[in-house]
């Protein structure tokens, strides 16, 4: 019922899509860090088992796996050096940021 | 009622200029410093002020500024006479809303023409 909204979603490759991905690249590790800090972590330290493995172990390794998966997805879509030019300053023109990397 | 107030401190210039303006039929009065020029404009309400820039006391530009800032006097045309002919000075005077600018030395006819030009609207209204 909301076709306009659907078409308004940033498409892969568009500037908006890149911006969202960049935000996501920031949020994923930060959020994961929160999940890995004591108050949260201790919620799972209750002496229970899951599939015969201590719950806190399952939790830690699950988050770890999720992180790897998330990083894999992000790395597939984060813009490449050649696609983004200099960030922050849209005025600057050279896409390789003017560094003499290639010399 | 006078037509033209001349502010010029050099008698050697004042003398011939008043002469030609009077010859052309205008009533002319002269002052020799800035303060007198302002006083003259306020009291005599001339139809035109012929103003030298290098006046003793208040300079011609100061007088010009004051005249143009006074709503009562601002419509009085001001014709600047100066021995400093650099375009910078000219621009300065025009920025201060001088109505004309003549560099010394000048041909008498130029002064007459310029005065005539500046006084014309008034002529047409009265005529």
């Amino acid at each position, binding site marked *: 019922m909301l076709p306009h909204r659907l078409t308004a979603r940033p498409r892969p490759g568009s500037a908006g899509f890149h911006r969202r991905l960049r935000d996501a690249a920031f949020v994923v590790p930060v959020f*994961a860090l929160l999940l890995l800090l004591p108050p949260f972590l201790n919620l799972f*330290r209750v002496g229970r088992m899951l599939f015969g493995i201590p719950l*806190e172990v399952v939790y830690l390794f699950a988050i*770890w796996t999720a992180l790897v998966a998330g990083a894999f997805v992000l*790395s597939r879509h984060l813009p490449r050096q050649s696609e983004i030019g200099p960030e922050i300053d849209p005025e600057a023109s050279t896409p390789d940021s*003017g560094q003499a990397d290639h010399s | 009622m006078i037509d033209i107030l001349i502010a010029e401190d050099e008698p050697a210039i004042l003398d011939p*200029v008043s002469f*030609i303006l009077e010859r052309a039929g205008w009533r002319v009065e002269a002052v*020799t410093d800035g303060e007198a020029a302002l006083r003259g404009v306020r009291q005599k309400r001339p139809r035109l002020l012929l103003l030298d820039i290098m006046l003793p006391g208040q300079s011609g530009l100061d007088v010009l500024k004051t005249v143009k800032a006074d709503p009562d006097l601002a419509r009085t045309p001001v014709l600047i006479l100066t021995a400093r002919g650099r375009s910078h000075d000219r621009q300065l005077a025009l920025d201060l809303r001088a109505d004309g600018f003549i560099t010394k030395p000048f041909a008498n006819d130029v002064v007459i023409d310029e005065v005539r030009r500046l006084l014309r609207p008034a002529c047409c209204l009265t005529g």
Partner: protein
Amino acid sequence: MLSPDFVIMTAVAYVGLLFVLAYVSDGFARHGRAGFLRSPAVYTLSISVYCTSWTFYGAVGTAASDGLEFVAIYMGPTLVFVGWWFILRKLVRIGRSQRITSIADLLSSRFGKSSRLAVLVTLIAVITITPYIALQLKAITTSIQVISSAQEGGSHLARIDNNRLALGVAIGMALFTILFGTRNVDAREQHLGVVAAIAFEAVVKLLALIAVGLFVVFGLGDGPADVYARALAAGVEIHESDPFGSRWVTVLLLSASAIICLPRQFQITVVENSDEEHLRTAGWAFPAYLLLMSLFTLPIAFYGLATMPAESNPDMFVLTLPMAAGQDGLALFAFIGGFSSATSMIIIASIALSIMVSNHVVLPLALRRTDHLADSGEQGIARLLQRSRRISIAVMLGLGFLYFRLTGETGALAPIGLISFAGVAQFLPALLAALYWREANMRGALAGILIGALVWFWTLFLPSFGTTSASIAALIADGPWGIAALRPQALFGMEGLDPLVHSVFWSLFLNTGTLIFASLLTPQGALDRIQAGMFVDIFSASRDVQAHPIRSSATTDDLFFVAERVLGWRRAQALFDADEIPRGESAADFAVGSDFVIRLERELASSIGAASAHILLSTAIAGDTISLEEVMRITDETQQVIEYSHELENKSRELREAARQLEEANARLQDLHRQKDDFLSQVSHEVRTPMTSIRSISEILLKELDLEEERRSRFVGTIHQESVRLTRLLDEILDLGALEGSERNWESRPIDAEAVLDRAIAVCEALARQKGIAVEHVGRPLAAPVLGDADRLSQVFINVIANAVSHNDADQPVIQVRSRIEDGQYVVEIADNGRGILPEYRQSIFDKFVRVQPESDRGGSSPGLGLGLNISHVIMQRMNGALELVDGPLPGACFRITLPLNAEAIPA
């Protein structure tokens, strides 16, 4: 079955394999067929040099004693790599664009290319990493001991001398590292052979650990659930006994910082990076590698705890479990895995440290020895660097071995590693500030790192000897001199904390605080500011931001000389040719662009570090009068490396001074220019006024033929008068021109000034009488012999008297002329009773075109155009005399003229 000899032979054979691998890879690289070596996979695998024998053996030990804490050691790096877009990408971009060679180089480069900072960071790195290397040696010897002794009930223990074993390993590693790690001195021409070997080792250790893990979980046990159940049955605590708390957070922080700050990680991740895009793969693949490495840690630990004898070392479960099950082959594989993890760490760490030591310590010291450099020929500096790197690799491994011998067998693997982590974590605040905080400056970074390192040393490093040294144990218990507040593990009374947490808290807190406050309170150097912009804005910087305060006045030969010393002839040649920079006699006047100088500096930096490169080039270029050799000789007299930057400071101070003088001269010139303009505009004004009158009146006279006689004659009179005025103006200008341009020859001859004065008064008296002015003479001497030009002097007198006459409008005007001889000077004072000179004119009375009286005064007897007094003033100066305005006896002005008497003419 596994004899020590066999195990050792296997290890040697493995190292031989690495040799071949590195050699072949280097060969590929030299022939430009190193494509696969520069792949993201190899890059990722080489980063796993993070997993040392501490991971391979120690993680199981940690898991056995502290449960899940070992996960934090891998979770920190995981988070950093998952967030690669933010920190690592920036780090790699900067590292590549600035040709960074090490973490010390990065910090020194960002903070104004400070050599002091580089030395400090290098020093801390060496102190921190030495125990870490010792840890690897210990792991290797212990593992050899374990694997070869278990079979024959310890009888071989005596035969294997631990120390000799460790020494052998150290020597072997040193040889390998020297052979493949110092092939060339340019860090940017990365160590492809070594990296290939490291990547291979990464595969070996991963496979070995997974093999052991699979064997334990599915061979010995019956799946993970079974392993945990058995451990539970054996009374092992499988759940976390303590809540996750400050220690967990601390280890997480330390490991996250270590993956960036450890010299070997920096070397692999930043320096050896050949393509920024590789981070994209490493961002998920390295965390995945860590995950795989950790997957079986807990099961192995719990199975070991449940089945092995209570006194067995949990650190060695990876070896002892297969051995206990009779799987010698697997045990040998595990041993090779552990050996791999240890050797890869030793190799990369010693390469990274040797680069730091040689670039930041040895090179600056050696630069003082000019002769040595001059003798060493074409590639002087390059050869020096290579030699110093080889020596420092040997020294690093020697230090590690020494530490190993001194500390012996005490302690588990993990604590030593954490001490190192906490040490290098002191670089973290400065590193983050370098990337993100523009205002951070060199003093802040230096002070922060220094304080942090000192606190780390006091609270963590020193107490680590507490078990072996009684005096240190006492120190820990009571504090130095009994000061309880300074107890290493309870600083300022902070008790009850885990020692690691305590140390990390205080060191990082004081480190960061000092960094921030020192940066805010001290000024930032110019170079510091420029580098800050280039680092912080690396992603937005455009080409022209690269401005650099080096101005090249050196010839291209000078530059080539420097480039050749460091890079060698071939690379220097290529660099110069690429930019078509000519050399030799014909290029004496060729202006080298600053962009080329910047590129050259960067090329040099990739070999010898930013600070050294900057010093080398700055002295060669900015030192117009000082040659490179001279700079080296100057610094030779000083004892410290620091003097280099000192010299540079002086140099730049001289430059600043020169710039200031130039500015002043420029201001004077502009002032003169303005005076000239004023003069011309004034003259033009003075000419135009009479011309206006003359032109206007003559037009009237020409046109108005019927003019009344009286007016006509007045007009003619005005014309005449104005012509006279014009003539006088021209005379005065000519006079002035002659005076100022000293065109006219002065004839200074003995004259009687008194006679001159008499004549002048006579000339003026007629004028004075006309205006009814009385001229009084007061106290005249008989004669005044002076040296001078009589006509000129007369002109001055007439000028001044005429001035007094024309400006005197008193009712009873009087002019007083008094002259006397006083202190060998002839003094004349001419005073009048007129209105005097207004105070605002007193300063400028002798300037050109200054008129004292209102303009209305200027009637027919125009006194001149304001040049008179100026001319008189100049004349008097020419005759070594003076013309001044003084307070006189009459109410009006009083001018005093003084002239020195002619000594020869005075009768003895």
